[in-house]
């Protein structure tokens, strides 16, 4: 589990990752920086449509684009994905820690009930 400000970013990341085209774009960018036309090549999709996907990825902080230059290649920024992974691995730890505490509480409840019975 994580803090509230982080979870806002997490939902942005989830939203950006929800689309298969955007996931494919990210997968391509793991192999190196690329221009819009390079990224568009594998898809049956117009350049503006690919640009719109890039914009979503940029807003989620998953992709950074060079400010200068004619081709403005896109670059992957993996830190939000790392955050998703950390959040996810926290989930299991959260439950394991909570449930073993629950074991202790249940033992106490049993003992308390037994005490009550003996005093009745």
């Amino acid at each position, binding site marked *: *589990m*994580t*803090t*509230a*400000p982080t*979870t*806002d970013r*997490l*939902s942005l990341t*989830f939203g950006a*990752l*929800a689309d298969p085209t955007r*996931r*494919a774009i*990210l*997968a391509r960018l*793991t192999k190196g920086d690329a221009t819009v036309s390079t990224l568009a090549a594998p898809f049956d999709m117009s350049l503006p449509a690919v640009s719109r996907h890039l914009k979503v990825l940029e807003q989620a902080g998953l992709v950074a684009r060079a400010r200068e230059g004619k081709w403005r290649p896109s670059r*992957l920024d*993996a830190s939000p*994905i*790392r955050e*998703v*992974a950390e*959040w*996810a*691995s926290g*989930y*299991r730890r*959260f*439950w*394991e*820690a*909570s*449930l073993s*505490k*629950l*074991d*202790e*509480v*249940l*033992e106490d*409840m*049993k003992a308390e*009930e037994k005490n009550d019975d003996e005093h009745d």
Partner: protein
Amino acid sequence: MTSMTSPAFRVVGQGDREIVMTREFNAPRRHVFDAWTKPALVERWFGRRDGWHTKAEIDLRPGGIYRFKLREETTGREIVLRGEYREIVPPERIVSAEAFEGFSETGWRPEDATISTMVFTEREGRTTWTATQLYPSTEVRDAVLSDPNMQTGTTMSLRVLDAVLRELR
């Protein structure tokens, strides 16, 4: 089906949007049910880790709200799990819609909520707790399941997460 098995606690994906957690407890189910529905008991275990404290508010009736506020003493960080009860059958079953507050910019919204169905079954004095969580999307469900410790890497749909995590190692 993806699965992770430890001696007692199991977490498995089910269908496109569900996670099913199971755990056995050496206690009758009326105790396990109480431990989930009485604030003083919830506060003793839910979200309790080193330095973290829990405050629970529970209005146990269909349509009633519960809030489990987890607070880290040293940093003041707070996480609030908020839910609304949909169905309560003591000591067998609790259905609710829940979400962490602050998960979206617009605050707590029912459409972000996870539908949680908890079933308590008792056998020979032991209770099996089964919690089925229906997530708002496959992506969120997969991200929750994508924990490397859960050994689900090959089957999850967020393959890009895999690829990127490999790059980072």
